[in-house]
């Protein structure tokens, strides 16, 4: 497809569920781009005069997305059933996580003296006022879920203030001090100096029970080595954080993956800090994993930079060679559409279409196409085969020794760098090793591997990125599966499956590269 036909929009759609969405929208606007802001809940924190050039659609939800980066066609739905259609160049998901009371998790009934931390923090005066007869107050951090440093900052602050009153005894029960945010270590020490009792649990956890109209706390104090039981006058529970309720629906509409807990942004290293599996879609804020407010603020600015870079880079990206589809060969199976981790392939009139802006040139579609109809311009089949021949001929031709011949197909994002580093460092790689650069483990298909064997190679090693650090999300995993299938094929045809090896490696792991190759060479020689 000729990219020049594409219309490129410089509008930015921000999807929010709180004032954070507005914060993000404002930075993007200030950086010079028109913004459409869709917020799920009506709110009074945004006024028209503040918004300036931000078009605010509130309350609205994302209903549908078509197209791709540079030209997303989105449909936003309002409560009354009406819809708005907009076009935008990229989309920012700027949702905040949900904080849920831990009361149910502790199996406690709704009581006036069982509170959530945010309730207490939002109005500490009112909370203190209720304690005018003195007593014991217990804060509980963690146990239900992992605790956070920025919530412990709040606990330390309020517990310290309470403990200044001589009639109040303040306890904080926790699994760990979470002190990684700036200043929290000191804040906790100060609270302790003010008389707050911090009790840490490693092997056990406290029980919070209801006895008539009383709450009873019972625990084994690991430090003192004895049981403690008392009735506090108030219990303050740290809340648990969960993905925003919109996450499931949005992830389907946007075709972006969620992590194993259901937050935006799948667990892939290259998604850090603010990316996801789709070009043109960014994820910021606590909706992609619980983070502090300060970190959310930093991300709000960072995403404004990323958006500008992406939108301004589209012209250049269109000029870059991408995918070539030989229409005559295409069987319209749409396997390519299904495997593309970047969602760069769509289909119109039952034909796959490739977005040069979304395409990351990993070649996964090339590997899966049963008709060999797809060609990756940057790494054409014939070029890979030629390179394969080149590296193998070099040592097969002239050598008369019996050292094994090894070809390494090395991912350009990891193993190939490791190989170059090993070579530059002058590390000793066994003599007859040829290394072919591949764009991604996911590009490896049976044809390439079998061609290598057909060239008289003793062993083919495919070295790709560790799973979860593949720049194409699934490339490395898909590669290991291809190799597994090939192993079975080789066994069936009577070829030793040990001659085909898959492994993973980081880009700086020069020594590991050498060790892997030399180990394989040694084993082959001994056979």
């Amino acid at each position, binding site marked *: 497809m000729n990219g020049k036909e594409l219309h490129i929009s410089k509008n930015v759609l921000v999807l929010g569920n709180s004032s954070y969405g507005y914060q993000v929208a404002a930075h993007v606007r200030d950086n010079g781009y028109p913004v459409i802001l869709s917020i799920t809940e009506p709110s009074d924190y945004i006024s028209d005069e503040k918004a300036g050039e931000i078009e605010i659609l509130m309350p609205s939800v994302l209903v549908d997305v078509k197209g791709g980066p540079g030209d997303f066609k989105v449909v936003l739905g309002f409560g009354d059933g009406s819809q708005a259609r907009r076009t935008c160049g990229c989309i920012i998901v700027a949702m905040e996580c949900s904080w849920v009371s831990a009361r149910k998790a502790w199996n406690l009934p709704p009581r006036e003296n069982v509170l959530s931390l945010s309730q207490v923090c939002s109005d500490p005066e009112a909370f203190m006022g209720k304690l005018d007869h003195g007593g014991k107050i217990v804060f509980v951090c963690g146990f239900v879920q*992992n605790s956070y440093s920025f919530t412990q900052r709040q606990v330390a602050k309020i517990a310290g203030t309470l403990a200044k009153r001589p009639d109040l005894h303040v306890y904080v029960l926790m699994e760990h001090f979470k002190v990684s945010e700036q200043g929290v270590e000191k804040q906790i020490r100060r609270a302790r100096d003010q008389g707050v009792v911090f009790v840490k649990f490693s092997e056990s956890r406290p029980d919070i029970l209801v006895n008539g109209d009383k709450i009873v706390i019972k625990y084994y104090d690991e430090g003192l080595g004895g049981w403690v039981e008392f009735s506090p006058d108030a219990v303050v529970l740290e809340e648990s954080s969960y993905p925003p309720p919109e996450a499931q629906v949005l992830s389907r509409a946007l075709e972006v993956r969620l992590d194993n807990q259901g937050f935006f942004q799948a667990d892939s290293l290259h998604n850090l800090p603010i990316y996801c599996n789709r070009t043109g879609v960014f994820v910021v804020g606590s909706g992609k994993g619980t983070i502090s407010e300060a970190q959310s603020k930093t991300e709000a600015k960072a995403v404004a930079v990323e958006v500008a870079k992406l939108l301004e880079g589209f012209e250049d990206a269109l000029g870059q060679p991408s995918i070539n589809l030989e229409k005559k060969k295409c069987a319209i199976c749409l396997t390519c559409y299904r495997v593309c981790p970047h969602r760069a392939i769509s289909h119109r009139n039952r034909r796959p279409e490739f977005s040069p802006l979304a395409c990351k040139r990993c070649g996964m579609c090339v590997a899966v196409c049963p008709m060999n109809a797809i060609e990756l311009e940057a790494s054409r089949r014939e070029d890979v085969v030629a390179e394969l021949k080149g590296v193998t001929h070099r040592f097969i031709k002239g050598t008369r020794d019996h050292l094994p011949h090894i070809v390494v197909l090395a991912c350009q994002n990891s193993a190939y760098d490791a190989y170059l580093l090993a070579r530059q460092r002058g590390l000793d790689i066994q003599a007859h090793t040829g290394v072919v650069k591949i764009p991604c483990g996911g590009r490896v298909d049976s044809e390439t591997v079998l061609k290598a064997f057909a060239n008289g190679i003793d062993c083919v090693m495919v070295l790709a990125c560790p799973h979860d650090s593949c720049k194409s999300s699934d490339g490395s995993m898909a590669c290991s599966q291809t190799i597994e299938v090939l192993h079975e094929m080789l066994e069936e045809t009577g070829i030793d499956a040990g001659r085909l090896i898959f492994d993973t490696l980081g880009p700086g792991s020069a020594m*590991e590269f050498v060790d892997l190759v030399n180990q394989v060479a040694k084993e082959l020689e001994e056979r």
Partner: protein
Amino acid sequence: MAGESELTVKKDRVIIVGGGITGLTAALELGQMGKDILLLEKGPFIGGHAANLPCKATDRCLKCNDCLVEEALRQVRENNSPLEVKNYAKVTGIKKNGGNFIITVEPSWCSIDQEKCTDCGACLEACLSSGHQAITHAPSINIHPFYGIRQELCTCLSEGVSPPCISACQEGAITISDKVESFQVQGKGVLLASGFRPYEPEAPNRYGYGHLPNVITTEQADRMLRERGGIFRPSDDDVPKKVAFVQCVGSRDRRLGREYCSRVCCGYSLRMALRMIHTVPDMEITVFYMDVQNFGKDFERYYNEAKQKLRMVRCLPGDFYGWQDHKILVSYFSEVEDKTISEAFDLVILTVGLSPNEQGRALGEEIGLKVNEDGFLVAGEENLKQGVVVAGTAQGPMDVAECICDAKRAALDMKKYIEGI
């Protein structure tokens, strides 16, 4: 002192101090925005501490962030409009003069010119064969020049011999001279990305660090894993069977005046331990700790894995003694057994925290930045109005991904200042 002519004065130029992951990312972003940048790095290589991080993947990625650093270095290498980077350029002073900053740079007396260097490696060979070890190679193939001179080990001048590397270099890229003069550059804005220093226990210390050969820091372990692909005992180069990690060394220690958590160490040490046990499955690893801090999105998954595969002991050991076969006898109080136990380990790895970079701090103070209780820099609105932006670990401990994000934030702040928004 040479005049301002050393490097041409360009209008609207941003001077970035520090070539670590933060400085590089900020430079790349500002470059993309069409801004004129000069990056000053005091050492021989760009990439900073982060470039020395090893990949800690086991059968899957543990998100050590090493690949993100590599990616940034690759971008610098492949950048269409090359960044103006000066290695061996230590900034010794920053003054504001009218609308501009005047930055005094003290170049190292030994350096390799990145324009001339072809990465041939002749200098390294010459240095080694003359019995010296001053020339070293970069941790990544994406760093150019690939070779660098470690000033503290470069002794030819003091020995009165003519440095063999200079004659070995066909390109004339090497300068070793006691006549290097400082010079000044000007910029409209200063982006301070001066980073941190890994904590190093001072002698004498209870860990025996410095005199027991098999007590090393995580910083040393990181470099060893990156360079050699494994962790070995310094005393005999053997693979250790029994290893202890000691957490919070130089962190959360009021007596040392370091009453803060270094934020990233739980993550990097537990990842290191998981990687070690993956490579050598019969290795026994004990982690002495107080608390475990959250690290990264996948924290609970890694922490659970750590609890299964490592022996987590909730206490910091008191004493460390040298033992037979260069083992280390570690004594600690076991809550499980309710008594003090002495246990021998083949290798002790001290999980060291992040310290403020004193040089960066001094520069920051010179241009009006505040310093927080822990010694890290704090920037306010008033600094931004003056064209001073701070980024990365100069402000306090952060991981690589956080540094990258913060560098982008800093680039936006700087862009706004330069454009007068």
